[in-house]
């Protein structure tokens, strides 16, 4: 049972345009949602996150929007740059006081930004 879903395996955009990556989840108990970026032969790198009590978080060119009622979040990259080309993973977690906060990942979306 896939609790975090990224239904688009790939996305291609032109440099300078907006990239929108989507993610849906089924578990309403998640406290935090995160986006990770992964280049080939490297581990995932944290990009941006959002608490379940917020609906927007912005960091430079990256903005994450959360729609709790729809159990949907999206990552906006504006403007897109060729260096943004990578696989983007949506992930979710529940918060604990110490101990484990395992991440539940989606299958990833491969973003290609064309010059």
């Amino acid at each position, binding site marked *: 049972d896939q609790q975090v879903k990224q239904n688009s395996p790939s996305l291609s955009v032109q440099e300078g345009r907006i990239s929108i990556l989507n993610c849906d989840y089924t578990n309403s108990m998640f406290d935090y949602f995160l986006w990770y970026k992964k280049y080939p032969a490297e581990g995932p790198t944290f990009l941006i996150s959002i608490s379940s009590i917020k609906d927007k978080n912005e960091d430079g060119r990256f903005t994450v929007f959360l729609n709790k009622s729809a159990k949907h979040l999206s990552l906006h990259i504006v403007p897109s740059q060729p260096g943004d080309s990578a696989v983007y993973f949506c992930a979710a977690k529940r918060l604990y006081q110490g*101990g484990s906060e395992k991440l539940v990942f989606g299958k*990833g979306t491969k973003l290609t930004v064309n010059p």
Partner: protein
Amino acid sequence: AAGVIQSPRHLIKEKRETATLKCYPIPRHDTVYWYQQGPGQDPQFLISFYEKMQSDKGSIPDRFSAQQFSDYHSELNMSSLELGDSALYFCASSLTSGENNEQFFGPGTRLTVL
């Protein structure tokens, strides 16, 4: 800045052999996570350790075991390897304090079982 170190980066084993994967977390991080990513799949949580004690367990086969040592490095031991164990194995570490304790991932160990 120091990152999460994993060794080896690549490992080739035969079926029914054993493998040991090592993870060295970022200094002062108290939590280590292991994830398995099969071809075309999402990373799946295997097991985690907090202050050297197992804190959570996911979809980890009984053939696998792991531990965290006094210096906080962790090892994932895999026995009776099967073809389906071929995957990327990621280790991540975090400092469990505050609300958004980000997990930092290592580069992964690519295990190929022949």
